[in-house]
């Protein structure tokens, strides 16, 4: 097991190298750089070359990449071109909010997806099953940004609810701060929940036909115990795989939600950084997200072993 984890973590290095290289290239393909924008904003065309030299953007691209990677390996992700603040600090300051948003979305996803999937399977081919399945297809097909925009627009018209303009920091009033995340996280969870529900339903249907379910019934166990103790654990393994894949989607979703609902998290920061061509910030956040997703997937792979004793590393 230890060897397995070490091996997986070592694999992280080439992945990060590749990701950093791709991100480094892609941000530089976008026309215009931070300096052009600075000059446009502040209007000193003469200073352009000097600015570029100060920010290190005058060096050749391979040189820039080399410097960036050398510092990154030492844990230094550079400083923001605009604020001059260390990128790592800026990220860690915004991370908790994004984390709470993602966790809350995950919470709604599991809270609705798994029970509804089980219910749909147990009531197979009844009106309830059809209803839940239609809802899940709907949930999968509605883009989250569209749903979020609708909520913002029609929420104001119909329910007199507008997304809060001022963000309440968690430290000031934890409950109110979390309250602000309810709607964005719900929107974020719709598609995730729908796919979890479909997977749970499919797996439950399969597992409920297994011989060991018949054995459990033949013991005289109540249907409830049969479903929860005998069927659910066996159904959840593929559901877990889906969740691993969804993590990337979830992080991408936070970027959208944070910008629509104006939440000062990592996603919003990333979007702003792209707008302002703040290369170190874009690169830093991407490396960060990449590491995070790889680690989450490792945890999920280890969880398989907990759910299924036949899987050992």
């Amino acid at each position, binding site marked *: 097991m230890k060897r397995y984890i070490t091996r997986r973590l070592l694999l992280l290095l080439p992945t990060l190298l590749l990701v950093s290289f791709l991100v480094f290239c892609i941000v530089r393909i976008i026309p215009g750089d931070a300096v052009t924008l600075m000059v446009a904003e502040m209007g000193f065309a003469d200073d352009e070359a000097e600015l570029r030299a100060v920010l290190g953007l005058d060096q050749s691209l391979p040189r820039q990449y080399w410097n960036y990677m050398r510092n990154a390996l030492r844990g230094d992700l550079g400083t923001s071109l605009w604020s001059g603040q260390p990128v790592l600090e800026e990220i860690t300051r915004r991370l908790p909010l994004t984390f709470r948003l993602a966790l809350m979305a995950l919470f709604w996803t599991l809270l609705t997806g798994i029970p509804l999937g089980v219910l749909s399977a147990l009531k197979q081919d009844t009106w309830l099953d059809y209803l839940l399945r239609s809802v899940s297809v709907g949930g999968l097909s509605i883009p989250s940004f569209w749903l979020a925009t609708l909520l913002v627009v029609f929420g104001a018209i119909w329910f007199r609810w507008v997304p809060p303009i001022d963000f309440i920091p968690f430290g000031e009033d934890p409950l109110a701060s979390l309250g602000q995340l309810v709607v964005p996280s719900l929107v974020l969870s719709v598609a995730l929940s729908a796919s979890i529900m479909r997977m749970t339903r499919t797996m439950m249907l399969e597992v409920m036909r*297994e*011989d*060991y379910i*018949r*054995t*459990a*019934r*033949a*013991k*005289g*166990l*109540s249907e409830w*115990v049969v479903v929860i*103790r*005998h069927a659910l*654990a*066996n159904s959840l393994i593929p559901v877990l795989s889906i969740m691993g894949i969804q993590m990337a989607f979830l992080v991408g979703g936070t970027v959208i939600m944070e910008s629509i609902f104006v939440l000062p998290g990592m996603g919003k920061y990333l979007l702003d950084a792209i707008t302002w061509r703040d290369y170190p910030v874009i690169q830093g956040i991407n490396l960060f997200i990449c590491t995070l997703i790889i680690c989450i997937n490792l945890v999920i792979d280890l969880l398989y072993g907990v*759910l*299924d*004793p*036949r899987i050992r590393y």
Partner: protein
Amino acid sequence: MMPTPMQNQQQAKPILEVHGLIVRFTLRDGALIAVRNVSFDLFPGESLGVVGESGCGKSVTFLSVMRLIPTPPGKIDAVKMRFSGMDLLDASKRQMRRIRGNRISMVFQDPMSSLNPVLTIGRQMREGIQLHLGLSGRSLDDRCIELLDKVGISAPEMRLKSYPHQLSGGIRQRVMIAMALSCNPSILLADEPTTALDVTIQDQILRLIRDLTRDLGTASVLITHNLGAVAGTTDRIMVMYAGRIVEKAPTPLLFKDPRHPYTQGLLRSIPRVDQPAGRRLYSISGAPPDLLRETIQGCAFAPRCPLAEEQCVAQAPSLEPFAPEHLVSCWKAADAHQHG
């Protein structure tokens, strides 16, 4: 000396009475009648063998007794289906749960898939005992260990912590048997308990079931497609074909004087050591009717029967006494021995 089960029959009341059992399934492409008017009694401590090929309704009959047939699509009808005086057809779900695993228990065909792969043996054994006998803690574990020991599993304490995939097929079936006997049931239903096992293990398992049920005074039903498997371990045998009982007799009598051509065919298709080498094994030609597509008018076996006549195709025979304790459903029962 203990009275033999046969003597018991005359005195004791049957523990399980099934009369006129009909099991239907409504499927997408039509209705299927899997069990057609099956009647039998099971006496306390008796061992009954139920023989027939796949799809003849033998498993469905006993799954219906346990009410483990999903309804719908299934539908269970019977004139009478009683377990020690209690009506199994009218019993509530709750009452059925109190019977299952407690008074009537079941061992299934494939021990590889009949145990839950993600729960330990101990967990799976404990839940039934806990539910029906109310044991807990140390006494619960003691009971499990005692049971595993009884079915011949070494180091039972260790096995409780094992997962099914860590055990061989034979051991798993022993665990299934231990689980089935854990609440001292009145009836043990064994549905093809040895079909999925190695030939060398099959005999051990059959003997184990016979010995344990005999010791505990549990009535047992051994469902199998293999007449050889029930020869040495049962008191009576019931042969089923296409959802009906075609012959029913005490085991020695059935082997000595089979009356239904189907039973005779089954007996002749068992490989024998004393058979001359190189001789081809007998096989019954044709296949059983497709219960979903074909409507059966006469005797269901008629198309495959060497003795079939016009009457057999036109009209179905009923299960009639041929000799004391020997029932046969065949128009030609009296002549059948000449061809057997």
